[in-house]
């Protein structure tokens, strides 16, 4: 399903915090329509790469090209409006609002009502329909009136995925969406992600290798701030450098 056309390209991206070089020249290519995993040992800089792409951090040098735009150093809301949405590794929601309200806030943006003071939010049937559709999609319809901060951890993770989806993005970045989920929940989440990323491109950070290998078309391995290999799951499994740098460690551990 994926074409060879890249939708998101990182070239020579560097990021340092003070003296510490975290990202040391990352080159990464996300093709339109593919599901791509970014894996690597703890501290390799996976979340930092996400923060750089989504506009949370500004790179020191290098280029990030998304769908015809250079987005290095652009603001998060600008990048989001171009069609790139993300979830967060640490749950990042509106904790005291209901689940429905959380998703509605996420849906509203695309309907351009963020400056509307003369109509009620309930007078937008499309917003309600889309919010309810998202609730169904992530199996939270029964919890719609629950306070988001009181959901179980995995329910909050599902809500995060739904919030990222709400803007109907071209590219979606998921930062460890399955962390803390049970087997059953993980299986469901994998199916969910497969479904909702139809026609979109996905870049996902995930530690569960079963998930990575079953979900993704291609994998990039990030070690100490550099991508050491990119390829299909089979290529990565058999890559000597990856075995040494990453998988080998896990096996030994």
């Amino acid at each position, binding site marked *: 399903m994926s074409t060879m056309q890249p939708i998101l390209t990182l070239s020579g991206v560097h990021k340092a915090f003070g003296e510490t070089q975290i990202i040391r020249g990352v080159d990464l290519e996300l093709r339109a329509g593919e599901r791509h995993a970014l894996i690597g040992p703890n501290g390799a800089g996976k979340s930092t790469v996400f923060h750089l792409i989504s506009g949370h951090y500004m790179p020191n040098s290098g280029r990030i090209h998304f769908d015809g735009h250079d987005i290095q150093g652009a603001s998060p809301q600008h990048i989001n409006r171009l069609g790139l949405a993300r979830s967060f590794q640490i749950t990042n929601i509106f904790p005291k609002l209901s689940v429905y309200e959380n998703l509605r806030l996420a849906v509203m943006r695309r309907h351009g009502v963020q400056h509307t003071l003369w109509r009620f939010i*309930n007078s937008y049937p499309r917003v309600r329909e889309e919010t309810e559709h998202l609730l169904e999609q992530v199996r939270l319809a029964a919890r719609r009136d629950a306070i988001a901060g009181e959901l179980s951890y995995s329910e909050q993770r599902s809500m995060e995925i739904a919030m990222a989806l709400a803007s109907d993005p071209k590219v979606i970045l998921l930062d460890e969406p399955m962390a803390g989920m049970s087997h059953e929940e993980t299986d469901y989440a994998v199916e969910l992600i497969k479904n909702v990323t139809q026609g979109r491109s996905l870049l996902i950070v995930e530690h569960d290798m079963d998930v990575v290998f079953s979900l993704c078309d291609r994998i990039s391995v990030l070690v100490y701030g550099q991508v050491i290999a990119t390829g299909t799951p089979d290529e990565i499994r058999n890559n000597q450098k990856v075995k040494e740098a990453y998988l080998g460690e896990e096996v030994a551990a």
Partner: protein
Amino acid sequence: MKSNTWIALALGVGLLVALPTLTTPSLLNASIQMLIAALFACAFNVLCGQGGMLSFGHAAYFGVGTFATVHAMNAFNGEGLLPTPLMPLAGAVVGLLVGIFAGWFATKRTGTYFAMITLALAELLHALAPHLKGVFGGEAGISTMRMPAWGFSFGSSTEVYYLTLAWVLLSLGLLYLYTLTPVGRLTLGLRENTHRLRFLGYDVHRLNVTVFAISAMFAGVAGGLQALNTESANYVLLEGHVSAAVVLNSYIGGVSVFLGPALGASLMTFFGYAVSDLTRSWLLYQGILFVLVMMFMPSGLTGFFGWIRASRKAHGFTAIAPLLVAGLLAGVLLSAGTVFTVEMLQRFFSQDYRSMAALQPGAGWAPIALFGRDWLPTAVVTWAVPLGLCGVGGALVFAARRMWQALVDRAEEMQVPSNAASTAQGGAL
């Protein structure tokens, strides 16, 4: 809204409309003040309770509303474009404009820094005002006259009351409807998590400025009503204590419920009216009240009512009734003891008493008149009374806490999920 809410609302409005026939003229004047304070607190709460931005300088927007309205009253003489009943519009427009300007700067930062900027901007205006004599009238301030319009003379308190009531009800209605608009919903998002809003594609700064300006606009309406009521404006309106009062009032009422700040503001204004003639220590009592509310019911009076409702549901009315009676009695006794002590000490240390004692050396301590009796400062009974009151009050508090603990324990034994009480806190909005 539930039908109960509608009935309560209709009763409340009915009572407010009937009020002039029920009260004395002086109480009616106090009611006008209460209405204005209620609107000011609700306007403040759009920013604070809903938007999560604690402003320490809201007197500025109230004040410019008052001055704008006074100038408009003098300029139009109640005729032409802006007849007397529409005068608060001048306050609204100027409040909005100043709010956009100040909000643009203040919302560049969040949290403590935001509060500091609002404080600094308000102090700046307060310091500048006496020097701009043409605008703020210097030390003397500016005065004006309510002119007749639309067949009303606006000479009596009753007419001013109805005009104020109409504006306050209209403004509160608009502020409530605001919470149902997309921007109103996003305001809650600002309070909860601005970071996430940004990653959902929202321009957070623009949103912040909008919320700030709307809050300032309605504060300006309240200020305009103040101008209509007092027919004058003085730069003391811009003082810090006005900003502080609206913060305290809102929190005493409860910032998480729409009408909570209105409740807090009208109660505190009424207490101010009722008590400030009786005692010089009114500000001390206000301070004590605020500290106690923040310590023991941080969600304010409305939160406290919510707690009572939730516990009644969880434990039954008969179970919590003795608890409430004990609590009420304890409150009365402790207040009486505290008031006695404060008033006694205040009189004992007053200048008058001191100079009297100095005039008659060797005569010993003269008795102090309080509550229709003379109390000797050296007599045991003088201090035994407040001690006794506080002692019994304290014992009742202790007993009430034991009773509450027993209720909770019993509920847990019966495996009744008593989380209704805890969720009631975050119930509204």
